[in-house]
């Protein structure tokens, strides 16, 4: 793998939840089970950073959240 490709593969993104806007619809968990679990009340538990291979799914989760309560930010290194 080239240096650029490996640097790309190591990029990470954070999912942040806008808690007052989250109504526990659970779609984010359906779309991104690798990163998002649900707690006993149905609210998201963000378990890990988003890796490059999951980025498309993460964007989909952010876009389709019924209450637009998710944000995706590049992790500050």
């Amino acid at each position: 793998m080239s240096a650029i490709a490996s640097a790309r593969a190591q990029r990470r993104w954070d999912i942040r939840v806008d808690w007052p806007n989250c109504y526990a619809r659970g779609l984010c968990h359906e779309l991104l089970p690798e990163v998002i679990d649900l707690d006993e009340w149905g609210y998201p538990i963000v378990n890990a950073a988003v890796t490059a291979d999951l980025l498309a799914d993460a964007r989909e989760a952010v876009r389709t959240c019924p209450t637009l309560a998710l944000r995706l930010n590049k992790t500050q290194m």
Partner: protein
Amino acid sequence: MTSMLRVAPGPLLLSHLEDGPGYRAHRARFGDLPKLSRNDLVAAAGPVRGRGGAGFPFARKLQAVEHRRSPEIVVNWSEGEPASHKDAALARVRPHLVLDGVELVAKAFGTKIVHLVVPSEREDVTNAVLNAVGERAHPKRYRIHHATDRFVAGQARAVLELMAGRENLPVTAWQPEAYQGFRGRPTLLSNAETWAQLALRVLCPEGRPTTLLTFAGESAAALVVEAELGTRWGSVLPAELPDHEPLLLGGYHGAWTTVGWLRPRPIDHDLLRAAGLPLGAGVVLRVPHTECPVTMTARLMNYLAGQTAKRCGPCFNGLPELARAVSALAAGTDTQPRIRQLRDLVTGRGACAHPDGSARMVASMLARFPDEVAAHVGAQCGALPRAKAGVA
């Protein structure tokens, strides 16, 4: 809460209380305000920590707005923590020191209008602040906002919501207030004591930095004292207290410790934080005679659960659940695993730190008083009959 409030004389902030709160006596005591540059102010603010609870260095906030034009200035005088009375004491004895701090920053940064957020349920505080404002040279430059009487109303984002005309409740902060606060503008929002401490660094730079503490819980009247940072707790704690006496340091969002642990250690933000005991708003709460740490934690947790803004799911589901679990523990059921599980479930999952602070207080009780907890589980605690029942 209580109107019974005693203020002990202190080295700096609470010195010469006999002067009274008037403006003339204040100016005669502290001298005229110098006009400072932004750099001077940042340098002077060095040792000042945010006294609202988070303990954030004030100089860092100033640096964040250093190159911005006329940042919004907000004094948070609302003191949402029910056990804390230091800002009420300041309103009564030294309101002009708070306003001096504000004026120094407003002049240096070219801010014309200053916002004062006062507690609507403490009329004496509001009146004292209004009186002080009326004595200043430009009373019309102060805008007064009345905070709602609830625990989370004093949180920074909740205060900004109130000022914007919305409900006085927390919302998600995507950026610190210093970058994006009131109306999306850079905002210097700090607790009343913080502003007074800043003024002291300018007006009495030779005096050693201090902090205000509220002693409460053992009697109806709270006591506000001023202590030099770096002195030992033994110099401010009543000498007659036994070493095993439990103390809740930092208030309802604080953490449990004992007199014996605290006494030899210095009053130091970083040292306390490293020990898992953030000083918070400086509350030192004792356990009433009728209670033990376990039943008191259950009582406070029930109060805190009722103070959720009901906006964030993990908080409005988790805190009542946590209150039930702690009450069950006080009544003799071993719910410790469930309490720890709930702590992990609510921590870091809300717009404000209400769930975090509540869970920390409960968890510190489990960690600090395993014997008392065991006594409850074994139904041997003397405070047991008074524990809240009605738990499934």
